[in-house]
């Protein structure tokens, strides 16, 4: 009995002593953390993709708490909903950023862009880029070795094994920007997803002169300027033999699409063009 009491006493004393020491150490090394950080972080998707420009969701939460306004801050993954809930936690107002999506600006499939040599190094675009311009005559096009695919945290971009061009999965892409950084040729761009996912862009990065570009690839932008002339909103500019559509100015009128002689301007998710037979009602569906 005595033994038992002694054991209880000793263990109890050790426990109490340890607790006291831990308490004081805990007090001494206490780090103050804004209590709002935790709920903000919980409201975030928690994938730590870095698409916001911060190393992870925690850093982004801290930045949101510390910032005066949420103007510059945007979580591309969670989008407007997430930012709204963050704003409500912090009592600030969120600015609505348009939803963006990754867009691959090269259509140099094996069919359109004949391959002139065979790459045999490590399967890595960055390594190929150190070596040379690529396996076709276009030195601006996609290598198709899948750096974007490897870096995507959402399994949203895949190199099509037939065309050797990456394709973006609209459902999964969160516009985290990782593939944009990974692509050594700057082919991938984040563009506005557009209403009903409808968007128009120039699917080419070739800055060679028209003739050379065309020789290298059937669907290369030759910088002819027809689209620039036809655009009513001055959204299209031509620099270095290459057209670029500014998605802030573009109103998706699609006038540029049919004038392109090489079909390098892409329209995505528009309804199929109607035949011009009966002119019953106005064709303007989108508002």
């Amino acid at each position, binding site marked *: 009995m005595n033994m038992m009491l002694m054991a209880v006493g000793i263990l109890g004393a050790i426990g109490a002593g340890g607790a006291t020491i831990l308490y004081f150490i805990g007090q001494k090394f206490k780090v103050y953390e804004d209590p709002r950080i935790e709920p903000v972080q919980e409201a975030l998707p928690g994938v730590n993709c870095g698409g916001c420009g911060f190393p992870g969701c925690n850093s982004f939460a801290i930045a949101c708490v510390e910032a005066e306004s949420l103007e510059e801050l945007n979580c591309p993954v969670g989008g407007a909903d997430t930012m709204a809930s963050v704003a409500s936690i912090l009592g600030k107002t969120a600015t609505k950023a348009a939803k963006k999506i990754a867009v691959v600006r090269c259509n140099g499939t094996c069919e359109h862009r004949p*391959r*002139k*040599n*065979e*790459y045999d*190094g490590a399967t890595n675009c960055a390594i190929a880029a150190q*070596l040379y311009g690529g*396996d076709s005559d276009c030195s601006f096009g996609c290598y198709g070795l899948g750096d974007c695919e490897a870096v995507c945290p959402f399994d949203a971009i895949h190199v099509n094994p037939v065309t050797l061009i990456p394709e973006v999965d609209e459902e999964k892409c969160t516009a985290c920007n990782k593939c944009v950084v990974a692509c050594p040729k700057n082919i991938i761009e984040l563009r506005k997803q557009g209403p009903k996912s409808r968007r128009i862009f120039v699917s080419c990065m070739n800055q060679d002169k028209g003739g050379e570009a065309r020789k290298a690839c059937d669907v290369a932008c030759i910088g002819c300027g027809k689209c620039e002339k036809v655009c009513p909103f001055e959204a299209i500019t031509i620099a270095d033999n290459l057209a670029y559509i500014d998605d802030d100015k573009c109103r998706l009128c699609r006038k540029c699409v049919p004038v392109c002689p090489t079909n390098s301007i892409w329209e995505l998710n528009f309804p199929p063009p109607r035949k011009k037979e009966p002119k019953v009602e106005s064709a303007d569906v989108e508002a």
Partner: protein
Amino acid sequence: MENKLVVSPSPHVHSGDTIAKNMYGVLIALVPAFLVSLYVFGLNALILTVASVLFCVITEYVIQRYMLKRIPTIADGSAIITGILLAFNVPSNLPLWILAIGAIAAIGIGKMSFGGLGNNIFNPALLGRVFLLISFPTQMTSWPLPSTMAPVDGATAATVLENMKYNPEALSSVSDMFFGLESGSIGEMSAMALLLGLIYMLWKRIITWHIPVSILVTVGLFTASIYLFDPSPANNPLIHLLSGGLLLGAIFMATDYATSPLSKNGMLIYGVGIGVVTVCIRLWGAYPEGVSFAILLMNALTPLINMYVKPKRFGEVVKNV
């Protein structure tokens, strides 16, 4: 031009060295020891070795083909080596079904569960052997006398190291041990045959001298220094060097690529470690033989050695004139 040019980063030539070349080199180096075991144990050695190789290769094939759904790489010879080394580490009268369990443990647990050749932490053959030693201690430690010496078939005898530990009077002579006329596992018979294998592997540059030499020197020096204080036959360094699986372990098992350190300095540390642990187990441990445990222990330390022991860097260590 009709055929497309191939474009790749430099270098554009290759030494022609392959995994298979190295592995088959090891196999050739194992031939003398195998011949000695045939001579000593007769048909049993052949049956056990062939069976062990088959078990190992089949296990690897099945796991790669049906479980991992990869292209099987049994042709590279590494499973064959594991099989031979496993057979070399068991008594010649071991039942085949125990051997099969050992092979499955060696390849399945020791190698494939880590991701296959190159990713394993422990030497698969040794892992298989230790698995059997712990699971079937009786069968794994009854050593039949070599057919050349046995009065009747099936007679068993203690190994040199068991004698050393429990019965120092019955020790074999050093020359018997050198040529392989004592009892023990299949492959550890003849020091001469194993050393021939070492010379072949060094000549073909399959391994470097660092690991085997550092192990043998450590064991020799360590036991010699003990022998100076206590000159009992149990401490005789020559017997320690030639007995048991020390040579087999030092030459063929400790030098396994995947489980030994990368740099030469690391290899020396690794070898010394194996030597010290082996002698400690032999002299003071519960088991008469400690090479397997010593190697497995140092296998576990290999990642640590790789992390801390760097190769000699250009311009850092070498003195300038």
